[in-house]
Each structure stands twice: as structure tokens, then as C-alpha cells.
């Protein structure tokens, strides 16, 4: 299935210098926000180039590209078709077929949007493909952000690949029982039900066992928590994070002030 390519790896290749996961998150987030706020084509293009370069240096480009393509290609196509062909507000008409008019304004609007969204998407993807999820989870728990959010994130990323092998097992077991998936929409829908029911009930049942296990191991507790994994967090990075967040906030404020004024 195509989405398999899009799951970030959980064992990142080592960057020459390893940032605290929250620092890279802050960097990616503020880059995305500032690019959106600036809404300038050159900046967007620069961020796209920077993100791709950073990913290449970090050695994650080969895994990042398929995910980025899966997300961005339909979006870009959709925007280019939509605004390239139909832009009633456009004045400069380059070509016309029936109701479809290619306008200069439409094309440039589409291009700007594509660049802006791609920049934000790539900045965030560079983060998720380079971060070590265990480190991120440990950092989140230490930081007092609800350990529950960390649990949901990490558990989802663990279950995602597991579910494919589980579906495959169910499909094999059912074929061995003599179920043939025939052509046609109705048959496909019926086959979907046959596979979804055991999948979902097994997942719900496993979750019930896991819930009991985690509660018995103190997951529901509200007291102070510690972390076995040691994620170093230098003071410099703490200041850097604050700086990045302030820069993003300033960019947003500036844009809103400009728009209002």
C-alpha cells in the first residue's frame, strides 16, 4: 500500500550533532509559521531548498521524498488545475477553452500557494523524519506535557506498521477458509467488512488488555514521573527554543498588524 512509504522511520540516522527533540520541533514549527506569515515566494522557495538540503545532509532524504510526494503532488495538482483553469477574478487571459480560462493571476496565485504550503510541509516533515520518537516521548514526559499525549503519539506510530501485518494475516486466514474476493464494488465492500470486523475487534480487545496492564503499572497515576531515558537538554537550546517561539509569534503579529493597518 502506498501509505507505507509515508511512515517516518523510528530509528533516525545520526545527525552530526543531535538537537533536543523539542528544539528541532520548535525550529520546524517556527519555520512553518514564519513562511506562512511572510507569504513571499522567494522565502518559500528558499525554505523548500533549505529543508531538502538539511534532509539530504541528515541522510533522511530517501525516506522523506516519497512521503512528501504522496502529500504534495495531489495538493499541487489540485491547486494548479483549480486556479490555473478557473479563476473568475483573473484579468489577463492566456488561453481559453470553453468555460476554462488560463489566467496569469490564477497561475501566480496557485504557484504562490503551492510554494508556501510545500515549504511548511517540508519543514515539518524534516522534523518528523529526523526526530527519534523515543527521545521525543521521553522529553514530553519530562516536560510535564501530559504523558498521555506522548503515549498516544508513540503508540500510534508503533501500531501503524503492526496493523499491516495483521491485515495480511487476516486476509490469508480468510482465503484459507475459502473466501474469494470477487470483482465489483459490492463484493469489495463485503470483503472490507469481513476483514474490518476481525481487525477492529482484535484491536479493541488488545487495547482492553493493554489498558489493564498499563493501569496496573501506574499509567493512570497523577504523581510525579521520572524518565529512564536520558535526553540531554543544554541551556543554550532552552534559550534557542524560546527565541524561535518568540520569532514565530512576532511574525504572526506583524502580519496581522499589517493586514489590519
Amino acid at each position, binding site marked *: 500500500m*502506498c*501509505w507505507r512509504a509515508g*511512515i*517516518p522511520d523510528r530509528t533516525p540516522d545520526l545527525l552530526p550533532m543531535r538537537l533536543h527533540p523539542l528544539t528541532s520541533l520548535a525550529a520546524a514549527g517556527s519555520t*512553518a509559521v514564519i513562511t*506562512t*506569515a511572510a507569504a*513571499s515566494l522567494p522565502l518559500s522557495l528558499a525554505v523548500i531548498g533549505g529543508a531538502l538540503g538539511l534532509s539530504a545532509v541528515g541522510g533522511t532524504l530517501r525516506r522523506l521524498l516519497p512521503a512528501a510526494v*504522496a*502529500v504534495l503532488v*495531489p*495538493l499541487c*495538482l*489540485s*491547486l494548479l*488545475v*483549480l*486556479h490555473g*483553469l478557473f*479563476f*473568475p*477574478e483573473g484579468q489577463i487571459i492566456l488561453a481559453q477553452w470553453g*468555460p*476554462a480560462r488560463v489566467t496569469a493571476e490564477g497561475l501566480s496565485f496557485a504557484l504562490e*500557494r503551492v510554494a508556501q*504550503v510545500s515549504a*511548511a*510541509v517540508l519543514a*515539518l*516533515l524534516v522534523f*518528523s*523524519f529526523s526526530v527519534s520518537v523515543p527521545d521525543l516521548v521521553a522529553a514530553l514526559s519530562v516536560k510535564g506535557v*501530559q504523558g*498521555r*499525549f506522548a*503515549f*498516544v*503519539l508513540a503508540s*500510534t506510530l*508503533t*501500531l*501503524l506498521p503492526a*496493523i499491516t501485518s495483521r491485515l495480511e494475516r487476516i486476509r490469508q486466514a480468510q482465503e484459507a477458509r475459502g473466501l474469494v474476493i470477487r470483482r465489483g464494488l459490492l463484493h469489495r465492500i463485503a470483503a472490507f467488512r469481513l476483514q474490518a470486523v476481525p481487525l*477492529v*475487534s482484535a*484491536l*479493541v480487545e488488545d*487495547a*482492553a488488555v493493554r*489498558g*489493564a496492564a498499563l*493501569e496496573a503499572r501506574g*499509567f*493512570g497515576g497523577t504523581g510525579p514521573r521520572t524518565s529512564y531515558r536520558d535526553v540531554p537538554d543544554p541551556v543554550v537550546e532552552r534559550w534557542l527554543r524560546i527565541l524561535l517561539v518568540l520569532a514565530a509569534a512576532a511574525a*504572526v503579529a506583524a*502580519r*496581522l498588524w*499589517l*493586514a*489590519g493597518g
Partner: protein
Amino acid sequence: MSSPSLTLPSPAPAAARKRRLLEILGALAIAGTYIYLVLNQPADITGGPGSASALIALSGFLVGAVLLIVAVLPALPTSTVVLIPVALVLNIVLGQFVGSTLVPFYLDAIGTVLIAVLAGPAAGAATGALSSIVWSFFNPTVLPFAAGAALIGCLAGVAARHGLFRRFYLAPVAGFATGIIGGVVSAPVAAFVFGGTSGVATGAIVSAFRSMGDTLLAAITKQALISDPMDKAIVFTVVAVLVYALPRRATLQFLFVRWHRVLAGRNSGQDS
């Protein structure tokens, strides 16, 4: 020898009030952002880069979604929390798969609606918001739709509480209504943040309305009114099929299901 306390204390009302306050704030942030965007109908949407509206849409909806998560997540029982990743996996796998086909649907809310039916509107809202945030880990374009997803989860829970999953034919009706509301709320995000839709099939529908001279927001809202109600009707039906296929012992472990008699009894109602 002093014996240890092995029982849970009753929940403190003060904490519940604080959470309620956060919930209301989150809902207000989402509603306020939507009303502002629709009333102002920023003219710059297709004229300029439009990023001021994009920023307002993004930050208003995201802040609302995050407030909802902060309010709800700590209060959920562990049995619900461990189910949320399962729901997210269902959302993401189906959503990513359907999104890559040429079907103008999303089917990315099956897990959210499942949780809402089993654990109630608050859990559903949190799951919807979490789903967008976690999915954005490898598809950042879904992040801005967090508030819309939370709304779907909340409405599904309300529908379940009022017995709309007790009769099999009512589930798609509830889904249809939920889809109308959800679609209308999500449309400004698509319009202001992306300037269009993220799928090719949905983009084609928007193009059709644009060719008739609609504004971008109007065209996307109309597209949402075509896609979303059908999509949610399908999702609600699928979830109804799934919850009735689950063993009764599994569904009845959820207090919400027991208290509000969400599902019909074994021998009454739903049976083909």
C-alpha cells in the same frame, strides 16, 4: 501495621470545573474563529497572498483543538486512552488510502466516530483533534483540520448519546447531518490555508463551481456540502456495523455505552 489505601478517592469537583472551563474556551476559540472568517469574508483571499486569514484560521482552530485536548485527555479513563491510538491508526490508514484514490470522500474519521460512540462526545472530540495532530507527523496538511475533526467526534458522541445508533437506519442520517456541519466549518480552512482542496477529486468539484463564477470560499463550501455529508453518512454506517459486530462484553466495559444505552439490546433493534 498501617494498611495501604487500595481504593480511588472520589474525583475533586474543582478539577472538573477547570476542565469544563478549558472545554468551553476551546469551543469558543473554534466558533469565534469561524464566525470571524465568515463575517469578514476577507477580500484578500484571492486578491493577495491572504496569509493573514490563513494565520487566523490556523491559529484560532489549532488553539481551540489544543485546549480541547488539554481539557479532555487527562480526564479520560485508561481504557479509552489506549483505544485512541487504535482509532488514529484506523483514521490514518483509511484516510491516507482513500485520499490517494480518485474518490471524492475522505473516510478518515472511522476511528474518531468509533471512540465517540463508545466513550462519548468529549472523548470523540479529543480523538478527532489528536488524530489530525498525530497524522500531521507525516502529512502536515491535515493539521489545520484539527478543529473540524474534533467537531465531528463531538457530534458523533452527541448522536450516540441520544440513541441514534440504536436503530441501524438512523446512523447514516446522523452522519449526514454531522457532515453538513463539519463540512461548513472546515471549508474556510481549505480556502484560506490552502487556497483549495488537497485531493484531486475534490479539487475537480471545486473547479466546477469556480467555473460558474463562485468565490473560492463559496465554491469550497459547496464542494464540502457535496462530499462531507455523504462521507460522514458512510463513516457512521461503517461504525454502526463495527460496534454491533464487537462482542457485547467489549462494548459494555464503556461506562458511556452502559449509562446512555447507546446500543440496542442483543435481541432488539438492529438485526437484518
